[in-house]
């Protein structure tokens, strides 16, 4: 098991190299250049030249790439052209929100999806089944941005003033922000990896609240995340519901289920112990794939709900031709994607004794 994980983590290296190479090339193939976006249409060629020189963008592309790789190995993702700040700082600021959004959306889509799937499988071909599957089909075909707007309209306008009302935009209510952990711990002059990690933890509300016990902030952040999480989690929820239904129906028809009933087992246990545990394998696969999909769905959701997350940051960077940010953010997403798949693979070994991780 340990060996398996170690080997999979080693495989991350070529994946990262490939991702870096491809994004490095692609961002430079996009028409337009950072000079124009930064200095404006009327920048003189001389000024532009100086600008490009300063960021090393005039060098041969091979030289640029090698220099970028050398810096990456040292943990230096370069500086954002637009903000003239380290890309790592931007990651530490923007990644936590998207991770929290993805986590919450995953919790929503998995619990609701599996629940709906089980109900409709057990009530197969009844009215309940039909209704559930209609909900699932609508969910699959509902665009994220449209559902997001509808939810915002319902919960922020129609239900305004009721206890059910939820904020439609932003990460926190006005005046609230997470306590900086560097200050909380009285740390000064942090740099490098330490600085990055402390920043990351400061901005992760879930971690922050455990350390500072600022529960007011936690509930506020949670309330702000509910609508986006439901919006982005609806498609995976619907897919998981349909997968659960078909997977469970397939298993329920097998003889070992009949054998359990023949032994006199209570139906609830038959479903819980024998059927669900075997039906989980394809469901977990889907959950893994959809988690990756959630990261890309986050771009739209963050735009609709005006959240300063990873997705909006990446889009803004692409539009501004902010090469180092695009490269850095894409690399982080790729690593997360690979790690999620690793978790899925490890869970297979637990779910299915036929799969040995060696």
């Amino acid at each position, binding site marked *: 098991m340990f060996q398996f994980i170690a080997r999979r983590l080693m495989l991350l290296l070529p994946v990262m190299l490939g991702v870096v190479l491809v994004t490095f090339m692609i961002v430079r193939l996009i028409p337009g250049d950072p000079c124009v976006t930064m200095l404006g249409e009327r920048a003189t060629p001389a000024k532009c030249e100086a600008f490009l020189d300063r960021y090393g963008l005039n060098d041969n592309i091979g030289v640029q790439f090698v220099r970028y790789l050398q810096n990456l190995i040292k943990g230096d993702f370069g500086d954002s052209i637009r903000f003239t700040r380290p890309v790592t700082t931007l990651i530490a600021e923007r990644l936590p929100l998207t991770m929290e959004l993805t986590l919450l959306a995953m919790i929503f889509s998995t619990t609701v999806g599996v629940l709906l799937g089980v109900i409709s499988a057990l009530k197969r*071909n009844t009215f309940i089944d039909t209704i559930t599957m209609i909900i699932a089909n609508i969910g699959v075909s509902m665009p994220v941005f449209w559902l997001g707007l509808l939810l915002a309209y319902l919960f922020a306008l129609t239900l305004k003033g009721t206890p059910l009302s939820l904020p439609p935009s932003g990460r926190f209510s006005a005046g609230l922000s997470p306590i900086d952990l560097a200050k909380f711990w009285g740390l000064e002059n942090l740099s490098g990896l330490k600085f990055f990690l402390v920043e990351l933890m400061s901005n992760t509300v879930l971690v922050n609240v455990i350390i500072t016990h600022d529960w007011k902030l936690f509930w506020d952040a949670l309330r702000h995340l509910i609508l986006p999480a439901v919006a982005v989690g609806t498609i995976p929820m619907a897919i998981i519901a349909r997968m659960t239904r078909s997977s469970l129906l397939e298993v329920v028809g*097998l*003889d*070992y289920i*009949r*054998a*359990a*009933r*023949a*032994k*006199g*087992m209570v139906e609830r246990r038959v479903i819980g112990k*024998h059927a669900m*545990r*075997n039906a989980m394998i394809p469901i977990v696969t889907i959950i893994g794939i959809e988690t990756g999909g959630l990261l890309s769905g986050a771009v739209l959701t963050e735009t609709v709900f005006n959240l300063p997350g990873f997705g909006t940051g990446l889009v803004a960077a692409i539009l501004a031709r902010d090469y180092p940010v695009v490269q850095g953010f894409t690399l982080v997403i790729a690593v997360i994607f690979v790690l999620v798949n690793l978790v899925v693979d490890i869970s297979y070994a637990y*779910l*299915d*004794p*036929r799969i040995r991780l060696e």
Partner: protein
Amino acid sequence: MSDQPGTNKINKQADLLVVNHLKKYFPVKTGVLKRVSGHLLAVDDVSFSVKSGETLGLVGESGCGKTTIGRTILRLTEPTAGSVNFDGKEVFDLKGDALKALRRDMQIIFQDPYASLDPRLRIGNSVMEGLEIHKIGNKQDRYQMAVDMLKKVGLEDYHSRRYPHEFSGGQRQRIGIARALTLKPRFIVCDEPVSALDVSIQSQVLNILKDLQDEFGLTYLFIAHNLGVVEHISNRVAVMYLGKMVELADRDELFRSPLHPYTQALMSAIPIPNPKLKRERIILKGDVPSPLNPPTGCRFHPRCPIAVAECALKEPPFVEKKPGHSVACWLA
């Protein structure tokens, strides 16, 4: 346990299981509104009995309702009509704890050894599970009973910690037998237990079934479509066609002088291991009609080589033509 070898001989004449006018219709739903548009007559008015300690073979083509009969007797499928009496108890009237108690006495062995074991349970746990459900003994006892039963079917105690995928088809089928037997049932439905196995493994499993029958005084309802297998293991044999029982007799009697033309056709299809021997084969015309809309009168008449006009009009009753030999045919 109080299983004495020999009791089966004493009880040989007593009926352990009596099936009366058993019917199982599956509703067929069509259209968006799922309206019931017809019924699939899987089992249509079948009556028979199984004597204590005997093996009743049940043969017929695929789709004739054999498996449905087995499952309905065990209440794994709910019946449409009819009754099943097991050792004085009306099986279809039982509920809750009484039904659970009955399940200890009646077990099933399945056809497909690859679908009959939960891939996520170690086989020791699969075999033990019935004991857990019925709260028999403590954990140690249960494990010991499971291991003992595995040994009876030719497996070792270390096998109990393995998962189903680590076993061959024949081994899995023996595990299925051990699982059915841990509760010390008196009656077992063997639903084509060897038809998924290699011929070389079939006899091994059949012999285990026979040995266990002698040891525990078991009664079998042995469902199969292979007449050779049925001849080997059964005391009496029943033949089914399209949801109906067409013939029932002692094994030797049935194989020596089959009365129903369908049974005769089946018999003529048994391969004889003698290339020089030539005999006339009765080839049946056409396919088995759909059980959704079975033929009128005798269900076999469209394919029957000797059918007369009467056969299409009136359904032949299932009557005893000779002592212990019943048949449903106007011409027999």
